[in-house]
C-alpha cells in the first residue's frame, strides 16, 4: 500500500499537478501535526471555493469588472500557491492576463479550464489522503514517539 501511495504521489508531481511547495508542506508535517498536509489542503479547498464562487458571480455580471476579477484571481492564485497546485496556478495566471487585456472571452474560457483542473486536483488529493490514512499515519516520518 505504501508503494501504491508513493506511486500516486509521484504521478501527481510528474503530471504537473503539484509542485515543490507540496513537498514543503510534507516536510512541515511532524508528530505535532501528523495530518498537516491534509489539513492544509482541506483548508485550501474550503477557502478557495469561496473565491471561485465570487469569481463566478462576478462573471455573471456584464460588463465584466476586470479589476475585480483580477483581484479575486490574485487572491485565488496566492491561495493555490500555498499547496503547490501547479496547474491551477497556471490557469490563474492566464486568467489574470486576460483580465489585464480586458479579454472577457479569454477570461471565461480560462475560468472553465481552471475549475476543471481545480476539481481534478481535489479528486486526486482526496484519493491520495485516503490511501495515506489507510497506509498508516505519517508515512514521511516513522519515528517512534
Amino acid at each position, binding site marked *: 500500500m505504501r508503494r501504491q501511495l508513493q506511486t500516486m504521489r509521484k504521478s501527481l508531481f510528474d503530471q504537473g499537478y503539484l509542485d515543490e*511547495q507540496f513537498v514543503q508542506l510534507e516536510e*512541515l508535517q511532524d508528530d505535532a501535526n501528523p495530518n498537516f498536509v491534509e*489539513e*492544509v489542503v482541506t*483548508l485550501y479547498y474550503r*477557502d478557495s471555493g469561496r473565491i471561485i464562487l465570487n469569481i463566478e458571480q462576478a462573471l455573471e455580471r456584464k460588463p465584466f469588472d476586470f479589476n475585480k476579477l483580477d483581484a479575486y484571481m490574485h*487572491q485565488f492564485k*496566492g491561495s493555490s500557491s*500555498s499547496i503547490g497546485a501547479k496547474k491551477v496556478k497556471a490557469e490563474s495566471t492566464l486568467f489574470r492576463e486576460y483580465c489585464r487585456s480586458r479579454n472577457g472571452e479569454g477570461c471565461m474560457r480560462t475560468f472553465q479550464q481552471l475549475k476543471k483542473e481545480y476539481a481534478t486536483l481535489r479528486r486526486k488529493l482526496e484519493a491520495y489522503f485516503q490511501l495515506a490514512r489507510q497506509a498508516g499515519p505519517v508515512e514521511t516520518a516513522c519515528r517512534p514517539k
Partner: protein
Amino acid sequence: MVLLESGFSSPRNDAFPAGLRVLVVDDDPTWLKILEKMLKKCSYEVTTCGLARDALNLLRERKDGYDIVISDVNMPDMDGFKLLEHVGLEMDLPVIMMSVDGETSRVMKGVQHGACDYLLKPIRMKELRNIWQHVFRRKIHEVRDIESLEGIESIQMTRSGCDLFDDGHFLGGDDTTSGRKRKDADNKHEDRDLSDPSSTKKARVIWTVDLHQKFVKAVNQIGFDKVGPKKILDLMNIPWLTRENVASHLQKYRLYLSRLQKESDIKNSFIGMKHSDPPNNSTASFGLHKPMNTMPDDVPNGTYSFPVNNSLAQSVDHKGQGDRNGIASVPMAEPKGALSKDIPESHKTKSSQMSFDHSLGSAASGVSFASFSSTTPARYSWTEVPEIQSIEYEPMQPENGFNQLPLPEPSMIEKEVNRSRTEVKPLFDEYRSNLVEHSSPADLVDLFPVQSKNQTLKNQVFDPISATKSSIKTKDISQNCLADSEFAQRNLNAAGIGVTLASLPEDLQIFWLQGDGYPMNIALQNFDFPEYNDPALIDETPFYLYDTPRLDHEHLFDPTEYYAIDQGLFA
C-alpha cells in the same frame, strides 16, 4: 536550531533567535496555517492574524510584545503597505511583506514603505529562518541612537556640574575654540556617528550636557513644532557647531523623546492645555505658518509633507472653507512613507491638523496651531514641556472645542491641495520612486507658493505635520484627511519633500538617510500624545486613515465637530 548550532551568539541571550516573537498577518487562512507551522519549526513564537486591523490592535495592546511582523500585501480590510507604515511608525518594528506578486514595482513600493524584506509566495521555510536578522539589525541601530541620547539625558539628570564628564570636553568656552572633532571616550556620544551615518563626514560633535542643555533650551524657546536646526543653531550661538550637527542631534532628540513618551504618561499636560485664547486670524495663521517654516530641517523623515502646511498656513488667513484642508495636511505625511516608513502617519496627522485649522477660519487656524504645538512640546517631558505647551496654545482658539484636532478648514487647504493635486500627483509618484533622488523639487516648490524660503518650507512641512498628527485627537479627522486626501497628501508630501530637498539638499538628504523612521516615531508620539488619555482614538485613527477609502470617513467623524472636514475632504 541551526542558527544556534552554528555558533551564532546574540548579545542578548543565547537562545536568540529562538523565541523570536513573530506576528503574521494574512487574510489567506491556508497561508496563515502554513506560515505558522514554518515559523514554529524555526523555534519562533508565532501569533497569527487574519485581519490587518486585528494585527494593529494586537500590536498596540502589547507594544513590546512582538519582535517582527510579517504581512501579506493584499488584504481586504487594509492595504498591506498601510499596515506596514503604521507598524513602522507606531511600533518601529521590522516588517516583512509577502505576496504572490513579485512585480518589481510592488517590491519597490514595499521597500519604499519601509519593508525590510519582501518575500514571494510560495514561501520556503529557509526564507523564514533568517528573518531574525532584521530584528537584530534594528536593535543594534536603536541601541546606538538611544544610548547617545540617554547619555545626554542621564548626564543631565544627575547633573552635578562636572562630575559626569571631564571638564575638558564639557562644552564651555574651550570647546568653541577647539576644532569640532572631539573624541570623547568618557561619554557615550561616541556612538553618535553610528546613528548619523550621513553626517559622519562632518566632524563629530560631542553633545555634552551643557551643549545639550543649550540645545534643549533653544528648542523650547523656538517651540518644538517650529524648531529647525537653523533656528536652534542661531539660538545656541555656538560658533563651531554646524547646522548638520544640530539637525542630526535634533533627530535623535525626537527619537529619544518619543521613546520617553512611550514610557511616561504626559497626557495630563496636554489635557491641561486649553484653547481658550482665541487668536485672531492673523495670529493663528501666523502661528501655523511659522512652525511650518522651521520644521523641515528637523524632521527628515516625514516632514516633506509640510510644504502642504505652508499652503495651509497661508490659506488660513484667507479663511476659506475649503474641503481639502485635511487633504493638504495629509499629503504631507505621505511622502515620508517612501523615505521612512514610520513617518507617514505622523505627517498625515499634522497635515490634517494644519488643514483643519485653516478650514475653521482664522479661529480654526489658531486651534490647529495650538493643538499641534501643544502636542509636540508635550513630548519633551523632561524639557519643560509645559512651558512649550502653553506657548503653543496661545494662538489656539477653542472655538471648535477640539483641543485635539483643529477643526478642519478644508476649503483652504483643499484649494491648495486641489490646485496642486494634479500637479503633485505625478510628482508624488515620481517622488515615491525617487525618494532618495529628490525628484523635481522645483516643481514641488511651485506648488506651494507660500513658502518664502526653502528653509521655512522645510520646517513647516515637517513640524506641522507631526504636530498635526499628535494633536489630531479625533481619528476621524485624520482619517478623513488621509483617506480623502491621500492623493493630495502624497502629492503634497512629494511636493514638500521636493521643496525641502531643493532647499536643503544636504541636510535633508542626511536626514532622510538617517530617517530610519525615527522621526516618524517621534511624530507618532506626537500624535499619541494628545490622545494619551485616549489611546483608542489614536489607534483608530490610523486604521481609518488607511481603511476607509475616502468615503467612509463619514461615520468616523463626529459630524458636529468635523463638519468642515466632511465637506472639505470628501467633497
